[in-house]
């Protein structure tokens, strides 16, 4: 999956998420057209008992735009990373809008992802004291090495634009 956030000079904003689902999708490559095909129907697994022709599978994709009329502040944001999309965007927005971090710090802050078994997955470098405290409370915890949450966002406030692509995927934003 990939996410693109765009803010144009005229104020129009686009937040778009695009995917072929898993890494290399279905791994079916059409040699005549050069197109690599998705495996999106896998997203129905474990989420329904029945599927129908024409139905779209459930998704975590969240291409979001926020606007504050009072502060004239716009945030164009989204993420890739399957189920970790929600974690990535939620924690970035909490860090940025409520905890007072910069957009860069909000995106790069280590996350905790609560998986479908309700196990807390801590990104390496997450605050150890918090991790241990939550473990003592009774949460199941683990520290996997691979994290897929990749947030790309653009924010405009006071006539200046900040654009950040997540370093987890070696991204870099551009503007003028």
């Amino acid at each position, binding site marked *: 999956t990939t996410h693109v956030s765009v803010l144009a000079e005229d104020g129009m904003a686009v937040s*778009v998420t695009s995917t072929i689902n898993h890494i290399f999708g279905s*791994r079916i490559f059409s040699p005549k057209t050069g197109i690599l095909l998705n495996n999106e129907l896998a997203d*129905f697994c474990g989420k329904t008992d029945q599927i129908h022709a024409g139905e779209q599978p459930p998704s975590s994709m*969240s291409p979001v735009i926020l606007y504050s009329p009072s502060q004239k502040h716009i945030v164009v944001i989204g993420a*890739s990373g399957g189920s970790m999309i929600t974690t990535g965007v939620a924690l970035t927005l909490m860090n940025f809008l409520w905890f007072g971090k910069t957009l860069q710090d909000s995106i790069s802050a280590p996350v905790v992802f609560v998986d479908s078994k309700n196990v807390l997955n801590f990104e390496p470098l997450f605050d150890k004291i918090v991790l241990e405290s939550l473990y003592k409370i009774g949460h199941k915890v683990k520290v996997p090495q691979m994290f897929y949450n990749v947030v790309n966002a653009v924010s405009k406030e006071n006539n200046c634009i900040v654009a950040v692509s997540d370093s987890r995927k070696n991204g*870099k*934003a551009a503007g003028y």
Partner: protein
Amino acid sequence: MARRKEKVCLCISIPIICIIIIIIICATHFNEECADGLYKKAAVAADSETCSKIGRDILQLGGSAVDGAIATLLCTSIINPQSMGIGGGSIFTIREQSGKVRVINARETVPKAFKTDLLAMCPTTTQPMEGAHWIGVPGDIRGYERAHKLYGRLPWASLFEPTIKMAREGVPIPYVLSRFLPLLLKEKPESSLRQLFQNEQGELLKEGEIVRFEKLADTLEIIAKHGADALYVGDIAKELVSDIQNAGGTISLEDLRSFRASEFGAWEVTLGEYDMYFPPPPAGGATLSFILNTMLGFILSSASLEGDEKVLTFQRYVETCKFANGLKKFMKDPQFSSQTEAVEIIQKHFADKVRAKISPDRTYDASYYNITPYLDSHG
């Protein structure tokens, strides 16, 4: 008489002075310099610098935000081909200058003929799921077409040019792609996907080595010249369907012909001073808005990350996520199931109800959060 003249003079000069002051204030305000690393006019944030720059260049050429996004996505299909491409689907959220927010949904769909026992083939653990039976009808190019028809400013073909050029000339394998290429060693040596990423000696390409996407460049060139129909009803459609069916898939020409990108107003919630706009199910924005709505009620500030407060804040957050996991079952295609629950979970009163169930110092069994088992997606 002189006093009258003075009064007239004042009446004329005061408004003029006021206007001049307003102009000076506005000019100063708009010419304010931005700090290093910030931009004054426009920006693009994508997964690679190469593609962010392509999007930026399109904006500088006078393209709209939609033009920039489409060019950036096309570029990403060759810089990060493991992640996305025109064989997939996309969802756009677009905010017009007027403030109106529209969603364009071009997510893949189940083909007309599909394996009736498909779901019985689902694994019980999270793992790669290969094979033609998992392919959904690709929607990406129909989504780009719809977005461009509504908001495009530059010609359709011009959005494809940078990517076609790079695909033909070849691009150095980026670090991120190089990390995933070893996964292709599982494929047979004659697999066309593996061949795309190997050299003449049959070795997988490494970071920095050049990969060319010549067939894809041909396909993109035809779509650029003849529009999206070339992929959905033209000769490319026939070739694509033939390749999918040779691989054991069921997607037909009729599936491609009948694919439509849908378009509607975004869902909206108020989060403090912000209005948040997102696509409705089957996308995940409703779950996200539930988490933010619930957390907002805990009255958060920078102090929430200090000392013991930090543990409490994350306790509340992970408990909210557990409830959110129980709500994911409502994120379904509205054409095939009710949206009542999804509409309910984005409401403030719903977040209030859940917040009241969150303890500051304990956690519960899965049943407390009303979770039915499901698989995490690593897409």
